[in-house]
């Protein structure tokens, strides 16, 4: 099943990022409409639409906004999560680069809805070129009166600023993001209190992903029913999927959440199957932090609920596809390198555990492992899972637990044969790997 792209309809057209282009395609109509309504109606509308957060957890956005403390003398804030650091995820990148005004409009409507006057877009440090694109669009929006004081004569003031990170995956976790915005290390806070009650500077704050906020102007413009009708129940609206790895046509694809995972990987409109005529071995459907799906588990809707039913999570909708040349012990090692490197160091199980997991995986991959290391891996992973302040710990344990579950025989083969039986040509040459 396919759907005409909405969020990314024009992104391939020249100058799609300019205000001029945006206004010619009904840009800022949503904001205009919103400013004529009471803020609560906007929250109601977003609730009705069933919009679920696109950052990873799929939490209903309308509810998140409703939780934002109302009766308080403190200012409120929108923090837009543009950290996009989940391995395999590159969708917000496209939206910000090619359709930045949609995000700006979404930020302004979100501010209006929860009663904030300032939105900070927290962008990862490596996206300097994206920051320039956003700031250029912000300048245009200010100059044309779509941001700033008394927007379009409505009496509503709103400022949107870009805040650049400096290289930290953990800054994508919502409370760590707020810490980083406050000029500190990106380390998570204890919840509760949730950001809706005590967020940025201790003030009520809604943290929303870029793609989430980009859906808001569409909902306001076209109505909640239009939005729900675009997808299966509780999984409405357009959705961006990032497909990478061993596929013929990697990229960002926008479609409805009734599209199956199988279609996304093999469909002619999507990634067009495996590159080089190889066989599919496994898919990690939602960024590196979620369990693996096997080839026979893909015939399910790629929705929050569909993927969960299949035994994994939609997460950030970054599907990483592996062909049959991929060694699963190597894969676990590659991902644990990521988690070990990115662990913020606040919680002991995660800081120490990821380092041990990586050490053991390296040992097995090099052929120096023992059978009991498999149980050790399981035990260390179990001791991280669910035992940390934020979901990073679960994310870090997952690659180990899921590869052990589905590919235990590969771990055993490494131990038995004293090395990697599947050293693909695209990997580091053997000797260098040992020295590394």
């Amino acid at each position, binding site marked *: 099943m396919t759907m005409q792209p909405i969020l990314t309809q024009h992104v391939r057209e020249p100058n799609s990022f300019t205000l001029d282009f945006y206004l010619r395609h009904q840009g800022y109509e949503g904001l205009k409409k919103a400013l004529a309504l009471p803020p609560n109606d906007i929250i109601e509308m977003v609730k009705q639409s069933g919009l679920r957060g696109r950052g990873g957890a799929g939490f209903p956005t309308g509810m998140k906004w409703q939780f934002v403390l109302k009766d308080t003398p403190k200012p409120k804030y929108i923090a837009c999560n543009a950290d996009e650091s989940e391995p395999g995820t590159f969708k917000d990148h496209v939206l910000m*680069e090619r359709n930045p005004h949609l995000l700006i409009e979404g930020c302004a409507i979100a501010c209006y809805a929860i009663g904030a006057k300032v939105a900070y877009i927290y962008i990862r440090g490596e996206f300097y070129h994206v920051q320039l694109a956003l700031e250029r669009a912000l300048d245009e929006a200010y100059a044309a009166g779509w941001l700033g004081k008394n927007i379009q004569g409505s009496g509503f003031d709103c400022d949107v600023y870009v805040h650049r990170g400096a290289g930290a995956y953990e800054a994508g976790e919502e409370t760590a993001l707020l810490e980083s915005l406050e000029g500190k290390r990106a380390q998570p806070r204890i919840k509760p209190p949730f950001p809706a009650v005590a967020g940025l500077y201790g003030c009520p704050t809604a943290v929303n992903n870029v793609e989430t906020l980009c859906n808001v102007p569409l909902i306001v413009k076209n109505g909640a029913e239009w939005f729900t009708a675009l997808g299966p129940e509780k999984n409405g609206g357009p959705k961006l999927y*990032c497909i990478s790895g061993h596929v013929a046509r990697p990229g960002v694809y926008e479609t409805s959440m009734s599209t199956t995972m199988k279609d996304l990987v093999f469909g002619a409109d999507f990634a067009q199957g495996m590159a080089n005529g190889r066989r599919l071995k496994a898919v990690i459907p939602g960024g590196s932090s979620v369990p693996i799906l096997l080839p026979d588990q893909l015939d399910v809707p790629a929705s929050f609920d569909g993927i969960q039913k299949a035994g994994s999570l939609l997460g950030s909708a970054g599907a990483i596809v592996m062909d049959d040349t991929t060694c699963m012990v190597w894969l676990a090692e590659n991902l644990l390198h990521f988690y070990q490197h990115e662990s913020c160091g606040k919680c002991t199980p995660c800081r120490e555990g990821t380092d041990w997991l990586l050490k053991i995986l390296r040992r097995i991959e090099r052929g120096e492992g023992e059978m009991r290391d498999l149980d050790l891996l399981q035990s260390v992973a179990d001791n991280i899972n669910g035992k940390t302040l934020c979901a990073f710990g679960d994310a870090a344990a997952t690659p180990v637990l899921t590869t052990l579950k589905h590919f235990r025989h590969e771990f055993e083969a490494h131990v038995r044969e004293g090395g990697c039986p599947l050293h693909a040509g695209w990997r580091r040459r053997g000797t260098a790997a040992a020295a590394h």
Partner: protein
Amino acid sequence: MSFHPKMPYGTGWHRSERKLAELGPEFAYTPENQARFDAIVKRYPPEHRRSAILPALHLVQAQQGYITGHAMTFVAGQIGCTPADVEDVVSYYTMFFTQPVGTYVLYVCRTLSCALCGAERLTEALEEKLGIRAGQTDATGTFTLLEVECLGACDRAPVVMVNDEWHECARPEDAAALVDALRERGTAALTGCHLCVERRNGQ
């Protein structure tokens, strides 16, 4: 050993251990950067100037290439916090350098999607061409080679960031030519981000 600018794991350093940065030469912003900082700090409530630490440090690094002890003290003065507060931030974020780096810093993405498409081979080829290992700077101070984690452009794997710019679909067999082209033409040799078509065409 895995590369981490602040913490050479495996050599006894631990994440929570601190290594004070060299004081280096005296530091102050150029007038242009001072003006930029003064504009940026206004984005945050006056009682939360600390929020401007990251932008302040980006300006330092753009001006001086890396962040010295004196620069941290300078930033602390601008923000109104202690140098320890600044150092705490510098030592956490991987994009901040506390030692000089090459004219071109090559950040090769090593995470899964890029690795599946040959990033490990690419790093090897670059190491061979430059005569250094990942994590090092070459003798002429022209190139620093780093392995980094997912850059958020996995459909164009393998991805290399060079300073602040993008180079996509970098095949291992083109690594040597890329180094030569950078020497000759600077960052004009890079593909740039495929999404920035117009700006690369000079708009």
